[in-house]
């Protein structure tokens, strides 16, 4: 028998004090298998041990919340007895090691979380971060991740309807792949991941277990170093066809009413599903690994329990109704194998050929996992990065030059290179295509639709994590509102560095505090999410990047609007205040190679008023388009309103911000102040729009007209930008595909 010494503990990522805790909970020394169970269940990935104290402060309740955090996914009521079931999850570390499979299995994992709840998945969105596309490494990872997302989602037939992609060198060694999946379930059909009923059989369904992904969860909880490439066997391989069968079979089997509880085997595989189901149901579980279908020979109980092979589910079935369940899986040519049963008590007992090989209290693995209130300390550099002297940046580039450059920046440019590889029309629910501010999917058999957006600005969070997190929530909710959706729920994916470093822990604490404040103010309770820590390569952390997904409800799907201008001669109105804030802006990063300053201010009351206003204007049919201002500011927002219209231009004149001297024009056009929306409306509706804004106490100014063939932007009457729409659109639309071409075929940007 292996002696558990410090080397074994280190290999399992278990700290000495954690080992003491294990011995205490066990009442004895664990054997190696038991230690393995603890190592995966107590990993950061599964236990949230560093973030839990902070996550507890988030608002998780609301009138529409049917299921909050703690289950496979959250659920909110959308009327007519239906629920939207959704969650976001990360697959960052695997996607760095093996981009295609890492991203593909990330998609597969979150889809399982949704159908496990009894919901049919109808939409996928993703939030992706890569290094600069000017480097071969980032291009390779980007190419692989996009192909992996498409390869999995397209095959299984769930449309990828939206998302956001940001490129920044801070993610060069640590890309982020966050995937949100949303499904629809009847409220009464929601099934939970709890085991109940002593004597009820426990079934294993789906793909066979192999040695892939052993200790994947532990890997996702460690920093990268030069040896990471050697961890490839810990990345799983996805089989979307198996998952499609599993999804259809599970949704069908749940309809029989014979399923007591169900859980997918994701991170920590069989270990997680058995212990969590037992723990949630307040009962024990006894399984024999001998019955687990195996892809390889000679697998030990340790390997079987810790494998992260994909596309596997664990079901607890009502005793006496086994045949009903087996018949459904047989129809789909899937094997449902009885591997154990629910027991009295609260222990997870694992056998091999009838011999007990592990015996652990369920709760020791789950609820009793350590919770750390890790020390937090504001980084010493925090204040200095918030200082930004424009005087040092003289001379200011011309607005025209900046405009041309910004359209060509991959973060701002059209993401069609990516989303044209994603099937976004399958399912016949997609109303707003990828490339709009929010994705909009209809809810069949109802007049309603759901608007969904994922957002997060790592630069803002780096400069001020509290403010950056509030801005992320505000932007996601604003995007949803711009499609006419009333925010009803949210999910968060926290992507940070090593929490054992006090300055990273401070970022986490501040960001969670910001998310909580903004979600409360904007009525978007958090119903679930994911935490991905240790996003560091060789000691350098990514930008702190909380990604927020907001789901909004439209009572009338036909009322939704998109960012694109519709009619020549319509009025263009800016809602919100143009404050010319350049801190953390894409303008500073692109034109001055600088990430500095204070992120834009955000008054949550004004933000809420703005969102309520835009929802009302859309509901009343007053406006033709709506688009929020984010990266690249007002100028880029106006330009984006003209794209995908077939060349419908805009002519606008805005009042310049004061106190910025030679930077006044650029700050006016490219500042990234929050709480701003560009809308267009027929002249006949202009009064209604202005009056509604006045009533809502939201600043509204008519700044121009839709029309002509160019984007003509003036500040205080002076033309600052004048570009033909089709030229601007060509640059914007092809910026990414151009960088993805072989070097000799690349075009250079204009100007």
């Amino acid at each position, binding site marked *: 028998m292996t002696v558990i010494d410090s080397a074994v503990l280190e290999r399992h990522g278990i700290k000495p004090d954690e080992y003491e805790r294990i011995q205490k909970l066990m009442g004895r020394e664990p054997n190696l298998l038991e230690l393995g169970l603890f190592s995966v269940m107590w990993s950061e990935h599964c236990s949230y041990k560093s973030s839990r104290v902070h996550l507890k402060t988030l608002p998780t309740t609301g009138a529409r919340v049917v299921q909050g955090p703690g289950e496979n996914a959250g659920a909110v009521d959308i009327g007519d007895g239906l629920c939207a079931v959704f969650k976001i999850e990360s697959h960052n570390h695997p996607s760095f090691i093996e981009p295609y499979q890492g991203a593909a299995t990330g998609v597969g994992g979150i889809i399982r979380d949704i159908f496990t709840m009894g919901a049919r998945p109808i939409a996928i969105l993703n939030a992706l971060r890569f290094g600069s596309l000017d480097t071969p490494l980032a291009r390779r990872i980007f190419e692989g991740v996009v*192909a992996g997302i*498409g*390869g999995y989602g*397209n*095959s*299984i*037939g769930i449309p990828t309807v939206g998302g956001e992609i940001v490129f920044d060198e801070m993610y060069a060694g640590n890309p982020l792949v966050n995937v949100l999946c949303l499904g629809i379930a009847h409220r009464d059909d929601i099934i939970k991941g709890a085991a109940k009923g002593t004597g009820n059989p426990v079934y294993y369904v789906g793909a066979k277990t192999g040695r892939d992904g052993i200790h994947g969860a532990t890997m996702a909880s460690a920093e990268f170093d030069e040896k990471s490439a050697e961890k490839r066997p810990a990345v799983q391989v996805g*089989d*979307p*066809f*198996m998952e*499609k*069968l599993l999804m259809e079979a599970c949704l069908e089997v749940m309809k029989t009413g014979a399923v007591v509880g169900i859980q997918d085997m994701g991170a920590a595989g069989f270990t997680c599903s058995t212990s969590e189901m037992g723990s949630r149901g307040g009962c024990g579980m006894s399984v024999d690994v001998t019955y687990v279908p195996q892809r390889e020979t000679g697998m030990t109980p340790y390997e079987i329990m810790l494998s992260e092979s994909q596309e596997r589910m664990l079901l607890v079935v009502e005793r006496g109704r086994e045949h009903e369940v087996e018949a459904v899986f047989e*129809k*789909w*040519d899937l094997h449902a194998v009885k591997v154990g049963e629910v027991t009295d008590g609260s222990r997870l007992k694992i056998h091999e050929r009838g011999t007990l090989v592990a015996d652990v209290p369920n709760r020791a693995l789950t609820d009793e996992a350590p919770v750390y209130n890790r020390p937090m300390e504001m980084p010493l550099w925090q204040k200095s990065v918030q200082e930004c002297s424009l005087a040092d940046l003289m001379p200011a580039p011309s607005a025209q030059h900046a405009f041309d450059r910004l359209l060509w920046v991959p973060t701002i440019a059209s993401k069609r290179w990516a*989303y*044209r*590889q*994603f*099937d*976004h*029309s*399958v*399912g*016949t*629910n*997609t*109303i707003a*295509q990828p490339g709009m501010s929010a994705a909009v999917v*209809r809810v*069949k058999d109802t007049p309603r639709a759901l608007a969904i957006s994922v957002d997060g600005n790592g630069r803002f969070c780096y400069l001020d994590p509290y403010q950056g997190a509030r801005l992320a929530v505000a932007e996601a909710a604003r995007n949803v509102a711009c499609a006419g959706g009333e925010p009803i729920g949210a999910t968060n994916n926290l992507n940070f560095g090593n929490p054992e470093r006090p300055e990273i822990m401070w970022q986490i604490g501040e960001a969670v505090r910001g998310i909580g404040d903004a979600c409360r103010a904007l009525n978007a309770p958090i119903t679930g999410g994911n935490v991905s820590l240790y996003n560091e390569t060789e000691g350098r952390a990514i930008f702190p990047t909380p990604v927020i997904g907001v789901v909004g409800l439209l009572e009338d*799907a*036909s009322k939704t609007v998109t960012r694109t201008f519709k009619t020549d001669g319509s009025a263009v109105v800016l809602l919100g205040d143009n404050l010319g804030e350049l801190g953390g802006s894409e303008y500073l990063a692109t034109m001055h190679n600088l990430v500095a300053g204070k992120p834009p201010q955000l008054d949550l009351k004004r933000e809420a008023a703005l969102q309520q206003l835009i929802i009302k204007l859309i509901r009343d049919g007053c406006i033709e388009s709506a688009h929020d201002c984010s990266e690249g500011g007002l100028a880029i927002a106006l330009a984006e309103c003209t794209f995908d219209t077939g060349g419908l231009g805009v002519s606008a004149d805005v009042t310049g911000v004061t106190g910025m001297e030679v930077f006044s024009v650029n700050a006016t056009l490219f500042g990234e102040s929050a709480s701003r929306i560009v809308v267009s409306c027929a002249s006949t509706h202009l009064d209604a729009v202005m009056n509604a804004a006045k009533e809502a106490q939201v600043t509204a100014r008519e700044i121009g007209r839709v029309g002509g063939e160019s984007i003509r932007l003036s500040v205080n009457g002076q033309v600052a930008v004048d570009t033909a729409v089709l030229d601007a659109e060509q640059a914007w639309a092809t910026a990414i595909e151009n960088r993805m071409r072989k070097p000799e075929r690349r075009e250079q940007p204009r100007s």
Partner: protein
Amino acid sequence: MKFAVVVFPGSNSDYDAFYAASRVVGEQAELIWHKDTDLKGADAVILPGGFAHGDYLRTGAIARFSPIMSAVQAFADRGGPVLGICNGFQVLLEAGMLPGAMVRNDRVKFVSRLVPVRVEQTDTPFTAACASKQVLQLPIAHGEGNYYAPPDQLEQLESNRQVIFRYASAAGEVGSEWNPNGSLNSIAGICNRQRNVVGLMPHPERASELMLGSADGRVVLASVVKALAAQAPSPKAQVPA
């Protein structure tokens, strides 16, 4: 009339076709499991899009062995209208019910976008309600939609007027700049010599409601309703009980 929509393991547009036939066009429709052996009295059959059997061998290569395919073949032999959409088209090619083959898109990647498709012939049950040279905005979503046939076969297809849909510009011009996947002669869809079996890569069932960006595809399923109404008795009635 009644549509049968065949469900292979891995079909993913089966419900979309069912929904378009029943809820949008307003006819009867039934999903038929691939292990079934009869078409349950259907007047028209749809082989839907997806990744039947995972498409791990060649697209459509295994699905043709499904039990239901003998019934589909017999139905087609009797002149019954059969429509293969995307993966369903690939199944028809593998089953030899349509000539030619699909290879990887010329630009290698999966392509998902709305494209203009020109209707070449209106004397098939799935284009009977179209105007000649009508341009339809239809979504494509495939990795292997690059149609190939040997030169003599291609020539025969053209001379027999078996090319039913071609990728085109919005104005109806045909050329390589509007060909999204490298298909020979910009072929998006073809029919058999008897003209009752039609396969196409674009998805008309996904473009049957304006809310979804285009309702142009509706005419494809509406065509078969019109064609069957004009032609009586229906093929199922000719089968001895």
